[in-house]
């Protein structure tokens, strides 16, 4: 079933005449940069999920908030859909354009407005890159905790829209846990402040509701993030295992010992070999699984916890446990993990990255399920796993030039997500639903739940002009996808227990 916007199942969109709209924009906003020629629009046809492309009707690149406000009012009056985009690094097609909609690029709002170490916050424009915030806070010994792997390029506005995560979520939380305040413009161009400079704010928690809402409820215009003092030290342990079950058990044992690592990552053999071949991190290429466990904090505590974790890992059956002997080795251990995606990209013409989450205890069963699906579909799958918080990133290897392989990759990806739902997990931990997982939403939620999501949307955008077609499927799409009957308790994988 096609992922691109399909008016038949995703809802009719108003027909807009490009030339007329361009004329209206130019007269209302003479200094707004608008792209309209096919060759200028083309670079914006996709975000980080490049398998899906749609050339937008127009691209606008505002530099002042008044421009955004006027633009939204104009689009609202004329019934023109608006898709917001930050740096365009999203992996779920959340910023995939519409042929009948304007692409609103917020990347030029890239100023850091204030870094306040005493107040422990930074106030930034939405186009500021994630890493730039930590760099600006570094002279004060502070940083912004969420660190998605695209942090060098991704923008904070997009992080808010997707509720971005990273490798340190178990201890430091997702984007939603690290925000104080977000300023937005509604579809009508009305300014709202969600949250406050204090730690809470009166009324409903709209800040939580907007975080991760994928540009469907409003446009982020300013973000106030929390800053944390940088941990004194960080150390990394590398443990190798002969079975993924043992590695999974080791993760549970670390938690049971009362230790919350700063990062806890698992890789399976295919991912280990790909990464080692690429980065030469010193990974054991014959191990069935490795765990990377980073402990951070105050020197004395980290020292003690390293000893405790090493003992736990050995007890759980690790055949080797290595503590990075210096900062260079620590960085090398991490480099292998952080480059796992491009490493897999070297051993396969294409790969497709999934983002399901599961209760950790289900790991052996889910990995077995993935392995069975891999044989069934004839595609290799490498597994990289934020083991601490149950967020899996299976990488499906395929070759788009071979007829039918992309379709098989999509099919196995869908099955993997449904497997995650079946064991009590979620189709997306940090990448968002976007367009990519729109069909799998029908497996995770029933029609009443989806109806309630539409009701939330209607409170803020009754005409459905902001990012139509993303995040929440229409009931029509779900009926078409045929997944409604497999919800809660009647899921596929009948051999699995329910809870």
């Amino acid at each position, binding site marked *: 079933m096609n992922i691109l916007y399909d008016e038949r199942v995703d809802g009719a969109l108003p027909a807009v005449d490009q030339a007329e709209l361009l004329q209206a924009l130019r007269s209302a906003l003479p200094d707004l940069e608008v792209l309209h020629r096919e060759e200028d629009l083309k670079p914006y046809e996709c975000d980080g999920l490049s398998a899906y492309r749609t050339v937008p009707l127009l691209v606008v690149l505002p530099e002042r908030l008044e421009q955004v406000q006027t633009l939204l009012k104009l689009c609202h009056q004329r019934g023109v859909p608006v898709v917001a985009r930050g740096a365009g690094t999203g992996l779920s097609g959340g910023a995939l354009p519409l042929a009948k909609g304007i692409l609103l690029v917020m990347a030029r709002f890239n100023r850091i407005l204030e870094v306040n170490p*005493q*107040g422990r916050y930074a106030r930034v424009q939405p186009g500021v890159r994630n890493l730039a915030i930590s760099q600006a806070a570094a002279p004060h010994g502070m940083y912004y905790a969420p660190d998605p792997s695209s942090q060098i390029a991704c923008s904070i506005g997009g992080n808010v829209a997707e509720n971005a995560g990273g490798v340190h979520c178990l201890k430091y939380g997702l984007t939603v846990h690290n925000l104080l305040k977000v300023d937005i413009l*509604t579809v009508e161009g009305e300014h709202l402040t969600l949250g406050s400079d204090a730690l809470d704010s009166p009324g409903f*928690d709209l800040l939580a509701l907007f975080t991760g809402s994928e540009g469907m409820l409003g446009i982020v215009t300013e973000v106030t993030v929390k800053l944390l*003092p940088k941990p004194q030290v960080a150390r990394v342990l590398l443990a190798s295992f002969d079975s993924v079950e043992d590695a999974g058990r080791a993760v549970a044992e670390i938690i049971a010992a009362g230790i919350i690592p700063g990062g806890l990552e698992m890789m399976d053999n295919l991912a280990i070999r790909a990464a080692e071949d690429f980065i030469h991190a010193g990974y054991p290429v014959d191990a069935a699984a490795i765990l990377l466990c980073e402990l951070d904090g105050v020197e004395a505590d980290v020292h003690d916890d390293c000893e405790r974790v090493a003992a736990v890992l050995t007890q759980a059956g690790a055949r080797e446990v290595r503590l990075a002997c210096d900062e260079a080795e620590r960085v090398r251990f991490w480099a292998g993990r952080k480059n796992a995606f491009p490493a897999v990209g070297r051993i396969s013409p294409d790969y497709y990255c999934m983002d399901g989450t599961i209760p950790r205890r289900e790991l052996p069963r889910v990995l077995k399920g993935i392995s069975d699906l891999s044989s069934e579909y004839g595609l290799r799958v490498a597994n990289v796993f934020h083991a601490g*918080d149950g967020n899996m990133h299976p990488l499906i290897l395929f070759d788009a030039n071979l007829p039918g392989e992309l379709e098989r990759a999509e099919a196995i990806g869908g099955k993997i997500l449904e497997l995650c739902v079946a064991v009590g997990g979620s189709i997306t931990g940090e990448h968002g639903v976007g367009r990519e997982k729109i069909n799998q939403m029908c497996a995770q939620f029933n029609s*009443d739940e989806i*109806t309630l999501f539409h009701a939330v949307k209607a409170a803020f955008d009754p005409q459905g002009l902001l990012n139509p077609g993303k995040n929440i499927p229409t009931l029509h799409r779900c009926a078409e996808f045929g997944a409604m009957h497999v919800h809660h308790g009647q899921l596929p994988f009948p051999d699995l227990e329910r809870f």
Partner: protein
Amino acid sequence: MSMDRDISQALLEQVNQALNQGTPLRIQGSNSKAMLGNPVTDEVLDTRSHRGIVSYDPTELVLTARAGTPLRDIEAALHAAGQMLPCEPPHLGPEATLGGMVAAGLSGPRRPWAGSVRDYVLGTRVITGHGKLLRFGGEVMKNVAGYDVSRLMAGSFGCLGLLTEVSLKVLPRPRECLSLRLPMGCHQALEALAEWGQQPLPISAACHDGDALYLRLEGGEGSVRSARQRLGGETLDSGFWSDLREQRLAFFNDPAPLWRLSLPNATGELHLPGRQLIDWGGAQRWLKSSAPAQAIRDQVAKVGGHATCYAPGAASSPPLPAALMRYHRALKQQLDPQGVFNPGRLYPDL
């Protein structure tokens, strides 16, 4: 636990009956937070028979329980496994329930360092204003599918739906805990806290009562020991923090109305008529004052904060800007079109 019971179907029937008859409901656990918001006089829907821990696996760091479960049962189960609710929710009554904790969204002294109630909400089951029992979020740490309806429920005072079940992230209790009392003035304490906030110190609670700064250190043995050496002071019984959280300190006996002032980090001294107690390292201040509500709110708003009165009545919840209020109404209208859940509890027209 022999009193464990799932009466979600009966609750659903009661809500559907209320919807059919157009009779609003007052959602109530033990009523321990009745001093917050406006009184609701409608028919009571009592959640307390819907109780029990549904699942708890310490190594998954997730606990799921029914809304009517007493908080003390949950905390006892966590304690037995060496874990805790990091947001340290105030009970404000011996029978306080999980549902009330989430609906009120109140957090205790650890809040600035560990996060709020909503930060730990992973999933909910909710009976909606359309008479459906639905599930949002789940029992996993990371879940960004759909809108975050679960966290929206936290602090909504039951105005958007009836919580029947909540899944929470929980954490191990710190290995070491030590409380200190350091005699010093208010100004000096606030300055010190602003400075320490930028350093990796294991502070997990900070309060000032006018005479002394009270600190709680939590972490590993090494970090607590070295922080204790650095900060000095005399050791303090850790019961101080539960007395603060439960409003049992002598400060709270003052007969004047109690206000909770929520302020930006590093806000300096605030001069208001009445007595003050500093909590949350300065980001929350308790005020006992008979000053007019508007005067208190105006002064607090000037420094970027807001004030909540801990006495039932129209002045209890801080007012919202008009535009924000309009979207609150729109959301209420969408999720509870018949206004069946706690009408007026948070704001008169919600």
